[in-house]
């Protein structure tokens, strides 16, 4: 438990609140005067209504959260609780995805909590032009995710005929050496296959990024993940892109390929400048 909230240690007065952010868009998109859609029915993390805060041409979709549950210390603990994370991530994504169907937006990373509107607008002011550029880049577009794993059949490759008498130590060693070599070759073929798939699909997209491989403990997939990529496509290109992924899967039996989407443009919001 956080040391700040031991019994008897609570500060007096009402619990403090912060502002949880979901997505950034152009302020025109949320302006009632411009016929913006009503989003007040959307409920965010912590149970409060979603609203928009406008900061010079940009607007951020936010909701009020209690810092007792969503402040820095509480967040650090909660982020280690998979059940809590599951629920909060889904609530967050539901807001991003619903709004993302209505107007172009940049998803904000989970757990971005501002102390107030002033802090939020100050942060946005520092990045105003980049954010507008990013909004133009994702406008009218959606993200598709492609994951490629080494196919299960590659996990154990058989070797060639053994030298020496069957059952001899020499036969065993040679068979083992052949197995290892075959395994390495199969793995190399899968790796280069994944690269070829990415190159092929990236050529069909407005933009593409390669993401770090996912945690095997979390995905529960034992196969090696060789590609975890995101592609930015025009919203109308879903059918043709799905067909392109199917063609790649057919052409690469050494891989198991999975397609997810359409997603709001999480991977193209400009948040990947931190070396990931």
């Amino acid at each position: 438990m956080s040391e700040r909230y031991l019994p008897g240690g609570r500060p007096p007065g009402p619990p403090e609140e912060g502002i949880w952010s979901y997505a950034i868009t152009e302020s025109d998109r949320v302006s009632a005067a411009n016929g913006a859609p009503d989003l007040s029915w959307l409920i965010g993390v912590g149970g409060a209504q979603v609203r928009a805060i406008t900061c010079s041409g940009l607007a951020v979709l936010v909701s009020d959260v209690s810092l007792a549950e969503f402040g820095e210390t509480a967040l650090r603990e909660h982020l280690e609780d998979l059940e809590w994370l599951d629920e909060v991530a889904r609530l967050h994504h539901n807001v991003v995805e619903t709004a993302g169907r209505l107007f172009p937006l940049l998803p904000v990373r989970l757990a971005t909590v501002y102390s107030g509107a002033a802090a939020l607008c100050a942060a946005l002011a520092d990045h105003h032009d980049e954010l507008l550029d990013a909004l133009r880049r994702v406008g009218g577009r959606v993200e598709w995710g492609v994951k490629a794993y080494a196919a299960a059949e590659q996990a154990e490759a058989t070797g060639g005929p053994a030298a020496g008498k069957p059952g001899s130590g020499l036969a065993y060693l040679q068979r083992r050496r052949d197995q290892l070599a075959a395994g390495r070759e199969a793995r190399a073929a899968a790796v280069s296959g994944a690269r070829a798939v990415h190159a092929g699909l990236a050529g069909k997209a407005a933009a593409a990024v390669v993401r770090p491989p996912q945690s095997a403990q979390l995905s529960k997939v034992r196969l090696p993940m060789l590609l975890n990529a995101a592609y930015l496509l025009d919203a109308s290109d879903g059918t043709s892109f799905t067909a392109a992924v199917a063609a790649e899967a057919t052409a690469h039996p050494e891989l198991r390929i999975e397609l997810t989407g359409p997603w709001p443009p999480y991977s193209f919001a400009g948040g990947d400048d931190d070396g990931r």
Partner: protein
Amino acid sequence: MTDVDLRDPGLSEAGYPAERVSLVDLLDRVLAGGVVVTGEITLSIADVDLVVISLRALLTSVSALVEPQPEGD
């Protein structure tokens, strides 16, 4: 615009029940994706590593059954 009631979270745009997005794909995006707009007085857990979270979260759920171990960091 398709004829879909956006207030119903159970329907995809095709009108079929939306499949539940897998947690790993969701966390991959909301934790490692999205824009990070920081300021001096922003609280942000944006730099938490996904792999570290997943290990700790799994250890936490298992630890209810075994003796809790002190954390190494």
